[in-house]
């Protein structure tokens, strides 16, 4: 089985979010970039397939050279090869088109992407890859098992979960649950050394016009101070929620 894992290079979860150039660009100053958490669960599940069922795992990112350390980290975790599509990630559609092209070109059986990236939160890329490659698609995937060309997946739904059966080629939008968090891997020294020798192929993009343009960014208005209520006076809290906030 050939697996392609899409890796988004995102600001780490504790990053302060700021913008520059008249609020049109994300300010990368002092920001540490990591593998998108949803993708990390998918990558670890891919490692499980590799170790238990003999899969070959390639990781891919659409982005400039600055994303290579993130791809190297994925190699150090155990992926066999990496591909960087050499173009700035401008909108979800153009990214999905590049990834769909890589997926088709390489004849992958399974494409694992994260449910959404934690920066732009588009939640579009996995579904768009599935649409563009005409593959089956399971979103919000929290468990995946594969037997030959059949797949059984569990996905989170509002208020519960659902188990579905489908077949390869398959695209999933993965998230926490695909593996336990305690099973996520940190690259060790041997992995890091081996990653240096693994191929990281830079490929040029195919034509893909962006369908949407990011015009600018805004930060939420600063919040006023909290109104503290004494634990001995909860009637006041009920009254504030009813009369002032109008939420009960």
């Amino acid at each position: 089985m050939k697996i392609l894992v899409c890796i988004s290079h995102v600001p780490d979860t504790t990053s302060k979010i700021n913008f520059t150039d008249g609020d049109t660009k994300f300010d990368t100053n002092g920001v540490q970039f990591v593998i998108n958490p949803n993708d990390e669960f998918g990558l670890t599940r891919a490692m499980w397939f590799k170790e238990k069922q003999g899969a070959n795992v390639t990781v891919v990112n659409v982005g400039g050279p600055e994303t290579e350390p993130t791809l190297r980290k994925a190699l150090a975790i155990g992926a066999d090869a990496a591909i960087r599509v050499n173009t700035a990630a401008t909108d979800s559609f153009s990214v999905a088109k590049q990834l769909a092209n890589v997926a088709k070109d390489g004849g992958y059986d399974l494409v694992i992407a994260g449910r959404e990236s934690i920066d732009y939160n588009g939640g579009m890329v996995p579904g768009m890859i599935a649409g563009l490659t005409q593959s089956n698609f399971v979103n919000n995937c929290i468990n995946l098992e594969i037997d030959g060309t059949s797949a059984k997946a569990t996905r989170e739904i509002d208020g519960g979960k659902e188990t579905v059966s489908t077949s390869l080629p398959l695209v999933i939008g993965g998230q926490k649950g695909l593996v336990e968090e305690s099973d996520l891997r940190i690259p060790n020294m041997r992995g890091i050394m081996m990653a240096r020798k693994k191929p990281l192929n830079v490929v040029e993009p195919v034509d893909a016009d962006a369908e949407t343009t990011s015009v600018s960014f805004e930060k939420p208005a600063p919040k006023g101070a909290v109104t503290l209520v004494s634990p001995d006076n909860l009637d006041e809290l009920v009254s504030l929620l009813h009369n002032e906030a109008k939420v009960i």
Partner: protein
Amino acid sequence: MSVLVYTESEQGTFKKTAFEVASYAKAVANQLGTTVTAIAINTDDTSTLGNYGVDKVLNVKNAQLNEFNANAYAVAIQQAAESESAKVVVVSSSANSKYLAPLLAVGLNAGYASNVVEAPSSTSPFTVKRSAFTNKAFEITQINTDVKIVGVSNNAFGLVENSGSASAEDFSPSIPELGVTIESTDKATDKVTIADAETVVSAGRGLKGPENWGMIEELADVLGAATACSKPVSDLGWRPHSEHVGQTGKPVASNLYIAIGISGAIQHLAGINASKVKVVINTDPEAPFFKAADYGVVGDAFEVVPSLIEKLKAFKAQQ
């Protein structure tokens, strides 16, 4: 060239978000000087949509669509959009709508903006405000394609009454072969879900153990709220993963979010920033959650929550 809106239902009845997306579609239609057509799938009574500005309903009755299938639903909506020559398609931000929308975007060659929080600031170019960076910022996005898909964030636009009456006509899309088949569903049907809830009562590690959740459920019951939790609580198995709220869990966009014994780590706050009013109950006055909250009680959850339940019951009895 009307605005098409997909109005979700469950067991034949519209979800609240159906009326919210209809209200949104009406606002867009007013800006464009056109009408609103809704597509309703296996819904019993579609007349209520008229109250939210829908002019016409395409009524789909099809047993193949009894269970949600993203691909089949996307195709049905695509065919409706094509038959109406819709230039704008409006969907919600439910998990199902977010599942089908990217497939629909590919099918319609349409640019799609998800998590949209306001009516378009301009329709030419078509510009919307969406939340990004897990609610830590907004992105102003322009959709450049001829057909546009807007995914509206839950509770962001609200319900707007636009009374009128919706005419209904039957619509029979041709459904493709389903590549994904549902084997089983495991869902508590009697509970308000986090995604639909207007009020969410959430508790964290400060509750000490799963045996203490009785009072959290009781508080949620009094308020008609959904229950939720912080990440360590679901990691420890005290509560199901589907209740885990935050950056790596579920986003919450309720009107009221009550956080009990939750410290307010940045990854938790990221998931609840879109909630309108936040109440925090925590023993530690230095807990970061107090900086994000509107109302706070510095106190022990084991004393505050039971007492709050009593006060709320008394308040409800008076109403």
